[in-house]
């Protein structure tokens, strides 16, 4: 009766839906604790890395007295955040293999015909070419691609970041961590990639927040609260 798969905004029907919610709908535990933890660590670290990283490239605040250490502090926060982000990425990678079916690696590989179809469906849906789309319980295939893309960007940032870190931290460990990149790319190119990843991740954040809000609004599936609680609302019909 209620067409929940559609983007159509139905205020009158939504009231009905809200009343019938408890009776009809099921709360499903989708995002396990490591996923939520990793997600919020990512948010925290990426935000801090963007702000401090931008400061390092373009110091917009100036010290007013000599005993301040703004740049040193910014770099310290940048490096600490970077290492927390790496820890968070490691948690997420571990959970690709140890998590529930919504967190597994399979969810992120769009290689089955079904997944490819889903990607196309969602592209059409977001481009207003399709009015209804079936929302899967976990990530939809297009969202999964966008998260893989974001993680690829994070990977680039980590690699180029360690390369730059190895400039002031010499030794074999830091060479292994990133110093070897200088054998492939020049210093300028490494800095360019590291800097550009910041802007791409900023753009990703904007799109991510908007799409999440959009889906939560359309679907009424509690998407936004699900990343706090882990529970999504699943409509039985």
């Amino acid at each position, binding site marked *: 009766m209620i067409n929940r798969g559609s*983007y*159509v*905004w*139905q*205020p*009158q*029907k939504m009231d009905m839906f809200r009343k019938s919610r408890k009776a009809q709908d099921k709360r499903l535990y989708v995002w396990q604790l490591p996923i939520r933890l990793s997600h919020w660590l990512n948010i925290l670290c990426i935000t801090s890395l963007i702000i401090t990283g931008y400061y390092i*490239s*373009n*110091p917009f*605040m*100036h*010290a007013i007295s*000599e*005993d*301040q*250490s*703004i*740049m*040193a502090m*910014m770099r310290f926060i940048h490096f600490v955040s970077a290492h927390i982000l790496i820890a968070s990425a490691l948690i997420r990678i571990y959970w690709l293999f140890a998590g529930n079916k919504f967190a597994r690696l399979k969810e992120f590989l769009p290689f089955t015909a079904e997944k490819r179809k889903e990607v196309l469906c969602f592209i059409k849906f*977001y481009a*207003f070419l399709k009015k209804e789309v079936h929302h899967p319980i976990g990530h939809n295939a297009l969202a999964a691609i966008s998260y893989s893309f974001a993680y690829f960007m994070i990977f680039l940032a980590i690699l180029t970041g360690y390369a730059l870190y190895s*400039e*002031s931290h010499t030794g074999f460990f830091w060479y292994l961590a990133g110093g070897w990149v*200088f*054998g492939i790319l*020049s*210093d*300028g*190119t490494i*800095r*360019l990639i590291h*800097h*550009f990843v*910041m*802007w*791409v991740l*900023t*753009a990703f954040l*904007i*799109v991510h927040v*908007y799409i999440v809000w*959009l889906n939560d609004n359309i679907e009424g599936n509690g998407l936004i609260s699900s990343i706090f609680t882990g529970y999504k609302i699943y409509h039985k019909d």
Partner: protein
Amino acid sequence: MLKSKDTIFDGLYSFGVSRRNFIKFCASMSATLALSSSAVPQIVEALEKKKKPYAIWLHFQECTGDTESILRASKPSIAQIVLDIVSLEYHETIMAGSGHAAEKALHDVVKNQKAKYIAIVEGSIPIKDGGIYCTIGGRTALDIANEVCGNAFVTLNVGSCSCWGGVSSAKPNPTGAVGIADAVSGIKYVNLPGCPVNAENITATIVHYLTFGTLPVLDRHNRPLFAYGKRIHDNCERRPHFDAGQFVRKWGDEGHRLGWCLYELGCKGPMAYKNCPTIKWNEGISYPIQAGHPCFACASNDSWDVFGPIYTRAPHVPGAGYQATADKIGAAVVAGTAAAVATHAAIRTFLGYKQKEKFAKEKDEADKIK
């Protein structure tokens, strides 16, 4: 030309360099090479006993800045030492001979001292259109380099131009300028980049070869580690101002007068590897950052096309036009994304209202039927 059978000390002595100054020079070379003081006697012994190696100094597509860097020393002794450490048989700027006599001296060394002499090259080699953009005595630079560098024991590329093309290879590189190692394949070479090169680093490289019989340890760009192993940023005397967050905002402001960090004026110290902060220039008087000018990483392969413009911090995006820094492109990407999201939201809201009207209509009709 000097008598090439002389030892280096003999040559210096005949120019009036005292033994005391000679020992001081050996000690300073040991320090430049980052060796311990126990290496000083070894250097002294080598320079006293060994014969001067033959050397040929070639000029190609360049500004003679590297020669100037050596000749313009404030005290004559160091200039003599630098020039007397080798038996310089051919140097277009300072040789007395000219014409066929000079060319003959060049050919004699190449023929008689094959694989024994040192070729010191200043300037890039244009390889476009058969190398016609730089010809000397009717021969192309490429031709001369093939003959002289190809037969040398080692080629010392002095200055950024001969290392990787330097300013003459900056985009659009109309002459197809490349470094010596790219033009003449299979040669043994040492890169001593810089714009210009530091005379102490050339001398120290040769002294190392004379003393130990080997070339100094080189990095992945064939640069001696003793001179190019450390980052300018890590040895900069303005580094505390960087860490504090005290930056010069524009030329001649208060921070500039107080000697604050030049980062915002586009200083490339964090990307530049050279021993400028320790050995400095002009007999240790000063170097660009000390004099209040940002480093532009003159010794780096990237200084023109990637690190430039000189006075901006943001990385330059290759192939995206002169004004397009990574920040401008990145900000455009984010602004475009935000605009796209806003448009999407607007369209969706509009469609939503249309739908609402439709429902209202349907409801009215349903009411009417009732």
